[in-house]
């Protein structure tokens, strides 16, 4: 009787050792390799492609994915009915270390779900539930600070335009909905204009309109045309996609020879849209907020509660030429703009030099330093009543009504 093995014993031994090695290596890999952190970014219903708010959130997450070795997945809910069940499903699975919720539409869903899953970490960007929770980080911005700097420069630009082409010195803004971040923009912008008035002695007219929408360019266009016809020289866009219609109105206003006007963007750098007539954008670094939240988780420095990003933290400000170039590159790569980033930067620099004169640059620098050093701090209106009261006082020229700390004269 000859027992025949399917393989010679030596081969069998080699195979066994090889298997053990591979298995051991796999166990070693899973046990000792740095564990990859998984993060999910949940957009609002608009999702990516707005070249502003949502895209900037994605930008911050992408950067975190590269620099911090994080796996980032994205999700765009179809409509409001999906916010709670999706958030609940993701929290229950617990596979994501952090769920980043982009925008105020998530407030209600987070309020309903967060307490049920204390192990799940959440970061709510640019909104607040009004409650402090250990597993929820809420990131807000000091919109007043970027608004104030934009206000000073807008007033300066309107003065130059009136000098060149005649007409009143008038600035305006096409805003979205009356929600707390917009209240803060309004306070800052009006403060900046009044600051310019107080320092230069030049009277500046001011107009502000809520279109009620963040996604309606036609409404933005109508609002802008009304303001332009009323003599406004510089319009500040604070309405997401809606103020793209404002951009178009300003561009056409110049192109059709109906007058001279400039537009200012906000959140992302939007100069690339038309560098000649959009020489400046305020920044609101949603990307910084998202990156920081992810960084906290990766580095094990998680701390729930409210975090407010201002000028001093690099959370808000005015886009410099590097930032302008960066977004112009994205627009160029995605074929939204045919102008090269270098050319955009060149036009923006020359337009800024032409319309922001030295005295205005000095004013902006002075105000920026005061804010950075914490010498002045803006008020945060808790409700619409307080907001209205601050605006009324500002309109009368009482700058200090907008300040919670410090004073200007």
């Amino acid at each position, binding site marked *: 009787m000859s027992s025949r093995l399917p393989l010679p014993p030596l081969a069998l031994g080699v195979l066994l050792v090889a298997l053990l090695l591979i298995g051991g290596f796999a166990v070693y890999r899973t046990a000792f390799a740095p564990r990859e952190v998984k993060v999910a970014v949940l957009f609002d219903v608009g999702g990516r492609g707005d070249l502003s708010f949502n895209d900037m959130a994605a930008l911050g997450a992408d950067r975190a994915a590269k620099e911090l070795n994080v796996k980032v997945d*994205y999700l765009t*809910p179809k409509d*409001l009915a999906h916010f709670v*069940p999706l958030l609940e499903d993701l929290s229950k699975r617990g596979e994501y270390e952090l769920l980043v919720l982009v925008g105020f539409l998530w407030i209600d869903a987070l309020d309903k779900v967060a307490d049920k899953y204390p192990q799940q970490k959440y970061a709510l960007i640019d909104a607040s539930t009004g409650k402090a929770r250990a597993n929820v980080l809420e990131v807000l911005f000091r919109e007043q600070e970027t608004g104030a700097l934009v206000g000073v420069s807008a007033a300066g630009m309107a003065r130059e335009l009136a000098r060149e082409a005649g007409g009143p010195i008038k600035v305006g803004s096409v805003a979205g*909905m009356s*929600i707390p971040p917009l209240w803060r923009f309004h306070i800052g912008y009006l403060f900046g204009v009044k600051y310019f008035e107080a320092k230069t002695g030049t009277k500046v007219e001011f107009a502000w309109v809520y279109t*009620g929408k963040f996604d309606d360019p036609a409404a933005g266009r109508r609002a802008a045309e009304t303001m332009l016809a009323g003599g406004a020289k510089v319009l500040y866009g604070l309405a997401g996609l809606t103020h793209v219609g404002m951009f178009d109105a300003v561009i056409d206003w110049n192109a059709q020879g109906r007058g001279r006007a400039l537009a200012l963007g906000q959140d992302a750098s939007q100069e690339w849209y038309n560098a000649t007539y959009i020489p400046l954008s305020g920044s609101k670094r949603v990307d910084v907020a998202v990156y920081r939240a992810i960084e906290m988780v990766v580095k094990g420095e998680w701390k729930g509660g409210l975090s407010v990003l201002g000028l001093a933290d690099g959370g808000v400000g005015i886009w410099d030429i590097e930032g302008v170039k960066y977004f112009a590159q994205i627009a160029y790569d995605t074929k939204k703009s045919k102008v090269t980033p270098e050319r955009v930067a060149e036009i923006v620099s020359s337009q800024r030099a032409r319309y922001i004169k030295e005295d205005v640059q000095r004013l902006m620098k002075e105000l920026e330093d005061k804010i950075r050093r914490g010498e002045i701090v803006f008020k945060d209106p808790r409700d619409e009543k307080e907001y209205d009261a601050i605006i009324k006082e500002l309109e009368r020229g009482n700058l200090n009504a907008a300040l919670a700390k410090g004073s200007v004269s």
Partner: protein
Amino acid sequence: MSGEALRALSETALALAAAVFVTSLLLLLLGYDPVSSLAVMFTYGLGNVEYVAAVAAPLVLSALAFLIPLRAGLFNIGGEGQAYLGALSFLYFSQQFGALGLLAGGLMGALLGGTLGALRAFLGVNEVIASIMTNWTLYYVTLFLVSRHLTHPEFPHRSIDVGFFLGSWTSFLLALALALLALVLLYNTLLGYEIRVLGSSRRAAAYAGIDVRRVTVLSMSIGGLFGGTAGALKVMYVGHLDTTMSALFGVGFLGIGVALIGKSHPIGAVLSAAFLASMIIGGHWVELRLGTPPELTDVIVGVMVLVLSAPYALKLLQRGGRLG
């Protein structure tokens, strides 16, 4: 099972296979992996049945809103506007009257549907055009009321909370009960018979002594009743309306697709609403798992609706809107 039902089922199975085929082809053309996309869509779509029930419930009703008038040969494109009105009425009346708010939503929808029906019956106003106009008017009326009068005191972007709530399963059972009611109405009542005769031929109906005007107004009212309830259920599930209108927008239009996939049959509408709801839910996970753009999900769902409803819609067109 009757031969007719068997044929309808096998027809749908064939259409489903065709829809999967066409969708896969399109996904391949766009450079995505069709197998994993559809696998993720279906597995995650059916992973949470309660969620499917919640999303399907308003769709069943907005399908009925289109289906009942269609059986009478009328195109109620106004399910959308009826849903807005129903949602608003529910939001308002549920504050004081709780569950009765649902009834208020349905009745307001019925009133609107009936008005459109009366315009058609007595003045010859085309119900499609009138529906589309009221849809947009009511869209902006809703937006206005949400941002001015029903606004939440703390969060200005949204309305106050609804005053009455039903769980996902209860609302689905409610939708199912209403679908059964519609079934009985269509096949076991005189009015249902008159609706079906009117759908087959207006002139024959008139010749047979059926009051065409009365049936026109009634079928549109019943459609409106369902449309209004659809809006009420949707806002009830979300808990509030907001100024993006994303809680409501499209619920009526999607109902048309659901009704066509379901071959204008109330039970078919329930099945196709559940199917579409699971596709929409699963679509979210395709983006999350495979990193595809969210628009891809819309494309998949759109193609599915198109292919699945095509055989029935074509039949309908060939007969000039008349049903057998």
